[in-house]
């Protein structure tokens, strides 16, 4: 019987590093989770305890599925500005690329840069054949990121566990990798 261990890869983009989680990421991650405006479309504000549990959950998803959310680090500040990555917990309609950034990190193209890297990773390294993003019907910033990656809205107002979202379908692997990677 094998012991269990995981190694979360590190992906470097022009301005960001997608990597495994560190204890010191709790501050930056909580800055996102405690920001009412940033969390409007991500299930509402959470406590610091919730943020701790959420990081543990992200790592646990890696352990169970072999993939999961990365910590998104801004190279310039060397701090956690949000999360991004492939995920598919129980009750999800399909393999997803999820993302969320602190308000102060929004509007700079970081979301697109991170999601692009995560989708490239999912197609190239995980061998995914398709991917979605679940986006609140009113979350235009997130929709813009999906559009920039070539995704299209496939289905509206889908009940996913405890929330409602539109399903945005990303380009298939070959097409995406040719156009974006």
């Amino acid at each position: 019987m094998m012991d269990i261990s995981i190694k979360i890869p590190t992906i470097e983009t022009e301005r960001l590093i997608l990597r495994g989680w560190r204890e010191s990421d709790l501050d930056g991650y909580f800055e996102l989770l405690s920001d009412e405006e940033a969390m409007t479309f991500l299930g509402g504000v959470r406590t610091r305890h919730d943020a701790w549990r959420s990081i543990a959950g992200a790592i646990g998803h890696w352990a169970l599925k072999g993939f999961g959310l990365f910590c998104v680090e801004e190279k310039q500040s060397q701090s956690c500005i949000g999360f991004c990555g492939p995920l598919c917990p129980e009750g999800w309609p399909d393999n997803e690329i999820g993302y969320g950034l602190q308000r102060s990190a929004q509007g700079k193209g970081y979301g697109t840069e991170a999601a692009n890297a995560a989708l490239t990773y999912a197609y190239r390294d995980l061998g995914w054949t398709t991917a979605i993003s679940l986006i609140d019907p009113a979350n235009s910033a997130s929709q813009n990121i999906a559009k920039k990656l070539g995704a299209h809205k496939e289905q509206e107002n889908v009940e996913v566990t405890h929330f409602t979202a539109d399903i945005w379908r990303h380009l298939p692997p070959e097409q995406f990798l040719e156009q974006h990677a």
Partner: protein
Amino acid sequence: MTLDIPTIETERLILRGFTPQDFDDYVEVRIHPDNAKWLGSAQSKAQIYKHMMLVMGHWAMRGYGRFCVRRKDNDAMVGIIGALHPFDYPTPEMAYAVHPDQKGNGFAGEAVKACLKIAYQTWGWTQAISMIDPDNHASQSVARKCGATATGEIIQDRGYSLEIWQYPSPEAFFTANPDMAGAA
């Protein structure tokens, strides 16, 4: 943070990390009415999966955590047993939730003792407790079989009143269980 979960073998049990294949059995442990009344109200499968993610990620956050425990003879899930140390708790505790079909065989106590051994020998614990509802006699019985005693100290935790049970010190534990004193 790294995540490394050892596998431990006892006389009748295997203690190891969870895999996706453990999910259905774990759902049975969580939703059975005998357990749900101590573990919180019955939850959806999505919530229970999130909890399984948390149980696994806890190992990375703390360096210790809870195991998926199965019987060696028939692979049946005995339960989820090991070290629990939430964000805002001052100390870790030994926590256990046992599958309703596997109660009364001494399995939980066997697993908790294995966890005390690794906690004292490898995780560096100098003491160990469990927090148990004063009405949860089955859970008290497990703690008692592992040498724990009720301290009478009650703490409030998310709407529950829980009594602190104290396990024997490392020295007392290995004196009482000399067969467990060998290297981990």
